[in-house]
């Protein structure tokens, strides 16, 4: 055992080399808004930096100077000097600035002095309770799957994640910080919170008493011992007290329940034996851990029982990434509240106070032109995060505090839940939860592994002039494969594993290595081809007299367009084949009705009855899909006198059309098609973006301008097309208005799963 401990302790690596500092403290050149959180053994630093703006992004609302990234790093206390020196050396114009800090360290003065003197800044202490609340709100409001519940006995996954982006739906909530002591705060709103209780029996007591008991306060060692120990050797159990005559029904307590922690040690002879025999050490540590977490859980349950909320979030160094403590706390809260309360944890709570400090600091120096952190949305930048920064729960044994990083990218715009969802609280975009579905997870991880080389090929082609392209593509491939390997082992590394975040991660890694848009050329080529082909498609439709037939044909065209997809292996085979894969061939691929999901007739009935006066269409791929499929479909609605809004991605993802590309396509199309030109001019046909850059669609976070527009235009039909948006995500989404989900199944596996065949059609119309 001792051997094992020393072996594992050696893994606690501090940031020794410049290389390690560089990979943690990135983008320091234009860094600002520094904030520190000085803890007992780790220090957290947070700052914002400028990143180059993606060239494909077109939006008047985005700053030309580039994007903002939030960097959150935690590093060992002992590295403070090195970190400060590195920051001082890298950051320009830091001297004389004000840096916010919070501290729970009893000897913070020395640290404050180090930071102040090395960086040449003014240190401002901010209220840590305010920081906790601000930081928690920030994390909850911006990070998907930020919250989780620990379920020790769940065989599929012990971590059950929740997303609480919509803050107003979670107020009031209770925040419990278990650090040296424990404090309980009730949060009623953005700036409205109240201290409702606390205790001095917390993490300090655990480590302090452990130190006194066994001479060590090493977290890893202690938690390993606690996992291994048997508290029943030192505790008095109910059956010890009542003996064999104990009648469980009378008191309602199970016989193996702890009646008194360390009760057996109140016998001095036994206590002497425990003191002298190292075998008992682990039993004592387990007993101590149970005693303290039970007590914390009980006090919290009692205090919270009189509050009108069951939303209870734990944070603090005591609970951070320690499964055994999360387990005992969850058990205690559940036990004492008789199941009415559940302990929730946050994936990134380590950075809560430091982020809160920065938000507070920025509030005070509100400057024009600078992003107001709380008024725009942020998203997790997976590609820049280290394992722990992203939350990879570990066994207690290797809960090492290395330099860990969380990065967030600023969307520069405010993202809101899509207002036409029937319930933004119940909505879950992902059709399959890969945390729970092992078969699906294995399939998708394999698919992603297989896809990466093809993706890299495209990426190198897109930058054929760059001498570094091949090398960078190689790095991307390795990085992505490494992440997939990690996900095979710890599939909860990004919260809920799903098709959406597997795809998003891939996009981010490409972008991180300056492949801003691997499919740029491909998309351009296909768009040009499709624009040339469009008049033929329109003409064929316009020549049909029967409205119903025409609309049916346009809908079939919408589906045929969706066959064109570089994201689907089966289609890539077709498209890369020797014969040219034309739109007509795609239409031929569409099987005869009835389709796998077929409510076309109902959709036609409702449309022709005049029930869809204003529609919004979320589009998928460039080329034939959007131009030959979606535009003719939209034209039919325009002919019926309806308003149409076409929504694309803002950022590139695979061969999906971006906002910038779509605007350009529409210009060209307007020149050729009178109907589209007229309707665009009259504002009956609008082009918008979702604010996203993903092959999937997450309706929890939609550009607030689009949200306002769909309400203003009284949208009464939501059309979502493509596998990524209508099958992998949103297949089960419920809307407050009618919706049409249209896609062609282009992977064998999904076809099998859904009980269909390759190129089976989903045309799912729901009246809400």
């Amino acid at each position, binding site marked *: 055992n001792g051997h094992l401990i020393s072996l594992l302790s050696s893994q606690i690596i501090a940031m020794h080399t410049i290389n390690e500092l560089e990979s943690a403290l990135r983008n320091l050149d234009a860094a600002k808004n520094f904030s520190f959180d000085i803890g007992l053994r780790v220090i957290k630093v947070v700052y914002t930096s400028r990143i180059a703006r993606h060239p494909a992004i077109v939006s008047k609302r985005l700053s030309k100077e580039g994007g903002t990234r939030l960097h959150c790093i935690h590093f060992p*206390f002992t590295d403070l000097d090195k970190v400060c020196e590195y920051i001082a050396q890298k950051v320009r114009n830091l001297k004389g600035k004000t840096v916010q800090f919070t501290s729970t*360290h*009893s000897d913070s003065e020395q640290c404050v002095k180090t930071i102040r003197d090395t960086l040449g800044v003014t240190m401002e202490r901010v*209220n840590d309770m305010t920081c906790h609340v601000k930081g928690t709100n920030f994390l909850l409001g911006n990070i998907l799957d930020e919250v989780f519940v620990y379920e020790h006995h769940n065989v599929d996954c012990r971590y059950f994640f929740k997303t609480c982006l919509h803050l107003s739906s979670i107020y009031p909530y209770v925040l419990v910080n278990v650090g040296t*002591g424990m404090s309980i705060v009730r949060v009623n709103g953005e700036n409205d919170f109240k201290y409702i209780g606390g*205790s001095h029996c917390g993490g*300090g007591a655990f*480590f302090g008493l452990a130190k006194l008991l066994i001479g060590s306060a090493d977290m890893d060692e202690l938690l390993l011992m606690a996992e291994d120990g048997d508290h029943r050797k030192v505790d008095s159990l109910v059956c010890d007290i009542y003996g064999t005559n104990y009648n469980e029904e009378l008191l309602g307590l199970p016989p193996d329940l702890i009646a008194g922690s360390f009760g057996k040690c109140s016998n001095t002879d036994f206590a002497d034996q425990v003191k002298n025999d190292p075998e008992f050490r682990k039993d004592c540590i387990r007993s101590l851990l149970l005693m303290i977490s039970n007590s914390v859980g009980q006090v919290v349950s*009692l205090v919270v029982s009189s509050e009108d909320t069951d939303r209870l979030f734990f944070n603090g160094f005591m609970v951070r990434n320690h499964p055994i403590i999360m387990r005992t706390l969850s058990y205690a809260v559940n036990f004492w509240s008789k199941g009415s309360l559940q302990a929730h944890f946050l994936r990134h709570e380590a950075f809560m106070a430091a982020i809160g400090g920065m938000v507070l600091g920025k509030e005070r120096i509100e400057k024009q032109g600078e992003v107001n952190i709380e008024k725009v949305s942020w998203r997790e930048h997976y590609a820049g995060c280290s394992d722990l920064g992203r939350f990879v729960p570990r066994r207690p044994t290797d809960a090492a505090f290395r330099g860990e990083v969380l990065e967030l990218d600023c969307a520069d715009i405010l993202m809101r839940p899509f207002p036409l969802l029937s319930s933004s609280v119940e909505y879950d975009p992902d059709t399959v939860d890969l945390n729970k579905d092992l078969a699906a997870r294995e399939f998708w991880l394999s698919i992603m592994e297989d896809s990466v080389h093809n993706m890299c090929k495209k990426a190198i082609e897109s930058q054929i002039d760059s001498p570094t392209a091949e090398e960078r593509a190689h790095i991307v491939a390795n990085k992505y494969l490494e992440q997939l390997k990690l996900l095979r082992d710890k599939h909860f590394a990004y919260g809920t594993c799903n098709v959406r975040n597997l795809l998003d991660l891939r996009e981010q890694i490409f972008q991180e290595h300056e492949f801003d848009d691997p499919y740029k050329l491909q998309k351009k080529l296909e768009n040009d081809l499709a624009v040339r082909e469009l008049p033929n498609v329109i003409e064929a439709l316009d020549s049909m007299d029967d409205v119903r037939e025409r609309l049916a044909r346009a809908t079939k065209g919408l589906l045929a367009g969706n066959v064109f997809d570089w994201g689907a292996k089966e289609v890539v085979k077709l498209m890369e084949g020797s014969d040219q894969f034309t739109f007509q061939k795609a239409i031929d691929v569409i099987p005869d009705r009835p389709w796998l999901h077929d409510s076309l007739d109902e959709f036609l009935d409702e449309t022709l009855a005049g029930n869809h006066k204003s529609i919004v269409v979320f589009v998928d791929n460039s080329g034939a899909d959007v131009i030959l499929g979606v535009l003719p479909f939209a034209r039919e609605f325009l002919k019926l006198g309806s308003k149409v809004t076409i929504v694309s991605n803002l950022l590139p993802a695979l061969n999906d059309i971006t906002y910038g590309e779509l605007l350009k396509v529409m210009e060209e199309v307007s020149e050729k098609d009178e109907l589209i030109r007229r309707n665009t001019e009259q504002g009956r046909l609008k082009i918008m973006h979702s604010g996203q850059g993903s092959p999937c669609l997450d309706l929890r976070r939609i550009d607030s301008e689009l949200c306002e527009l769909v309400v203003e235009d009284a949208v009464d039909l939501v059309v979502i097309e493509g596998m990524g948006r209508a099958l992998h995500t949103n297949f089960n989404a419920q809307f407050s208005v009618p919706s049409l989900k249209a896609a062609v199944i282009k992977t064998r596996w999904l076809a099998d799963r859904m009980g269909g065949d390759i190129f089976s059609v989903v045309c799912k119309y729901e009246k809400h």
Partner: protein
Amino acid sequence: MLEVSYSIGGFTLRNQGRLGLKDEEELAESSPSSPSSSSSSLSSPTTTTAPVSIPASSTGTVVSQSLPYYDETKSFTERMDELLLSSSLRRENTLDGPQGDVICKRTSSISGARGAPFIVLPKEERFDPLRQKPRFAVDIGGTLVKLVYTSVSPPDSDGSTDLLLNFRKFQSIDHCIEFLKSSWPDRGSECYLNGTGGGSFKYAELIKNELGVAVKRTDEMLSLITGCDFLLRNNEDESFTYHHEAEGLERYQYKPIEEKAIYPFLLVNIGTGISVLKVDSPSSFTRVGGSTMGGGAFIGLGNLLTSARSFDELLLLAERGDHRQVDSLVSDIYGGDYNHLGLSAEVIAGSFGKCSNLNVRRAEGLAENAKEEDVAKSLLLMISNTIGQMAFLYSNRFDMKRIYFGGFFIRKHPISMRTLSYAINYWSKGSCEALFLKHEGYLGAVGSFLDTKEETK
């Protein structure tokens, strides 16, 4: 050997000595000066004589010399316990108490001529037969045997006598049996001994063999509540509060409770663990909660972390200790008061916070220097504060006005009463007081005594 002197309530006791003359004088002075005891007709007329009767050698007769009631080898806690039991407490000078409604039949416990503390039983028909034939009841726990039994007082000047209920405590069942042999001479095979506690099963055979009487067992929890109910109704100064700032016996003050206001209350029993009972009537109670961090944790951890060999030694260590040497205070973290939460600099932010020595920058390594008395004090505060907080939270949840504490952790030990009282006051922001029961250790025995149901064999 540990030479300890302990100052409590104006008495200075040494672990080898006993009540000194100076202390008796102090006590004699303090009692008449009590404003309420001199003005209230309800207070016991024998107040001033009470404590004097405790030492075996002074006044009163000792029942058995071989089993001295006041034992030199007895620990400080036990002596403290007996001292308190044998004293009348001061009535709290309060304006809001229901003073006018107090029923006169209540009497105060005092120490009798025979040396054991007693209370006068109310003049009720059900007790009349006991004038002819005494009744005995035992509560046989893991460490102590508690005995209650009736006797008739010597006649007053007007010739009237009282029926007394006497309280005695024995270190072992053997001592108790020996006592019963000598003081229960007219027992016959038709007699039985009322009994409760785990030992009433274990020693039934032994008792039958030694004394020739059967043990009539009563339910442990029910006995506890019945006894508690009886004492609260009939003994005026049964429930008291602890006031550390006062001197001498003044620290223990009682407030009479109107009978109809007794229920509901919370009974927090601090033994090895803690159980919290919500008592709604003499026959209905619920276990609403509990905790594993109680007396067992205090003694257990105390044994592991200090050289103390007993609960008493541990408490004496704690009394001398300074928790600020091992705990993290608000001032340690914030450099002063934490005004934002209204926490003063002296408030403990984290128990044992200084011991973990997590701060690698701090070279001196405080943990190595932690003194055992400081550790004992910090441990006591951590546990009693948490108990106090939990008790208050339960009382708040069930809207209970009164919280009674019992169990060996409290057993009339001023330092634990002090920390609990402080905790309840702190957490309730002064709206709630910790209450203690004078005959706390005897509740089960009294409850068992009151059980007159025919035994079902």
